[in-house]
């Protein structure tokens, strides 16, 4: 039997021994990951909500009454070529009236009072890029658009938009901060859990040392155990979080995290498990 075959045999023996203790370690890792996974699901859904809210923020540009439809579309093209503008939609007077009647059915009498010759002004609905909003360039754009010939007024939520953007930015920063804290704490939990499971088998390491096993022969089985423990624990945590998410889906509408995030969670488990196993075996091998 070559030394490599012996090492493989050691790995197999190591994985077969103490199934009870290993199960407890696995559960601890999985439970730690459930907390992290829940946080990821919440932040993923929060991010989607914030994206949606931001996408609804826009500007309404009212055109002067004497402007024709073609001239209005030219103004629209001019605005859409401006930096920070994502899209421009031209609303004709007829469409504006239809929208008014659809959205405010109880106030249609106002239109009737104005007489048959009255027409709502044509307007342009503008959506800005995320970048433009995050950089607070909306008021500048408003001034530029307001100065274009044919534009009567440019209206946006100047009262609530700065507050909304500030809130969104603050929430994002908090999520990142909380994420860092959670990644650090979960890494420490997995690291110490796996390390402890290795240290618990210090007798094996001691015996390997005194019989003259090379360092890699001692460490490799523990490292493989650590990797498997980290992957299995994080995958188990994901599975439990998925079940929890499914159970709660009827009460709270939400989505589970994307595949790329799940891959990162499993990678985090593998890395922390490996480092914990290495630290445990090194500590005992010294």
């Amino acid at each position, binding site marked *: *039997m*070559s*030394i*490599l*075959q*012996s090492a493989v*045999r050691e790995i197999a*023996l190591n994985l*077969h*021994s*103490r199934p009870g203790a290993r199960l407890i370690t696995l559960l601890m890792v999985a439970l730690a990951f459930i907390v992290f996974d829940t946080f990821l699901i919440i932040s993923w859904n929060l991010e989607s909500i914030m994206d949606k809210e931001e996408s609804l923020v826009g500007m309404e540009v009212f055109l002067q009454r004497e402007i024709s439809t073609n001239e209005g579309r030219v103004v629209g093209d001019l605005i859409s070529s401006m930096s920070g503008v994502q899209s421009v939609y031209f609303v004709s007077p007829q469409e504006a009236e239809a929208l008014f009647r659809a959205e405010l059915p109880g106030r249609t009498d106002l239109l009737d009072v104005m007489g048959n010759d009255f027409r709502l002004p044509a307007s342009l609905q503008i959506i800005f890029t995320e970048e433009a909003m995050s950089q607070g360039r909306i008021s500048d754009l408003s001034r530029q658009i307001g100065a274009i010939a044919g534009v009567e007024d440019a209206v946006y939520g100047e009262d609530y938009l700065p507050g909304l953007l500030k809130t969104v930015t603050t929430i994002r920063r908090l999520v990142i901060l909380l994420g860092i804290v959670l990644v650090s704490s979960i890494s420490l939990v997995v690291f110490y859990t796996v390390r402890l499971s290795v240290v618990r088998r210090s*007798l*094996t390491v*001691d*015996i*390997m*040392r*005194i*019989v*003259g*096993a*090379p*360092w890699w*022969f001692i460490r490799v089985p523990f490292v493989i155990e650590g990797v498997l423990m980290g992957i299995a624990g994080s995958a188990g945590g994901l599975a439990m979080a998925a079940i929890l998410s499914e159970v709660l889906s009827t009460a709270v509408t939400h989505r589970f995290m994307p595949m790329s995030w799940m891959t990162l969670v499993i990678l985090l488990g593998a890395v922390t498990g490996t480092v914990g196993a290495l630290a445990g075996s090194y500590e005992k091998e010294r």
Partner: protein
Amino acid sequence: MLVTMTGVRLSYGRWPALDKINLEIRQGEFLVISGPSGAGKTTLLRLIWMGDKPDSGIVEVAGFRSDRIKRRELPQLRRKIGIVFQDFRLLHSRTIFDNVALPLQVTGAGNRIVQKRVISLLARMGLSHRRNSFPHELSGGEQQRVAIARAMVAHPFILLADEPTGNLDPEVSREVVELLLEINRGGTTVVMATHDPRQVPAGKGRFLFLDKGILRGADRWTELDQDS
């Protein structure tokens, strides 16, 4: 000289565990190191298998010097040394055969060699019928014989026995000491640390006495025996 210690001192924290140790161990010798608990017997053996390195002085074992040995060379040295402990230190999830075979397996010895050597040693220790048992199924004496078989399986040139009879009753202790003497008669150097040197018959080995980390020389145990 198989083992040479020159001016060796080792402290754990502020307290010296060993001090001013000068010792030579010849090939084929049976050396008994006695002394009370905490005298430094285990530490002395650890210096021989280089589980610890001295703070000052030099330990030389089979050409490996404590001040020059590299970390990657330690396994090579330890493969030439067999070690037996008071608490046996067997792997409880493995069979007796696997426990004894371990030192050969970590060096990548072939299956046929492992089988032959382990079976022959188990027969010599009177444990052939126990080869598929697990350590917890054996008596203390049998477990210690397994530990000795494991220590001897890779043909070491020195066998270190740290209180090998500490957990055994007097009858079994005598058997274990007799086994160590028999191993020594086969040419293997044996260093036995014990708190009770009277276990080894006078004239069967060299006796040294350790007291508070300092080697007090031979025959001290005889004086103690006379005192008592």
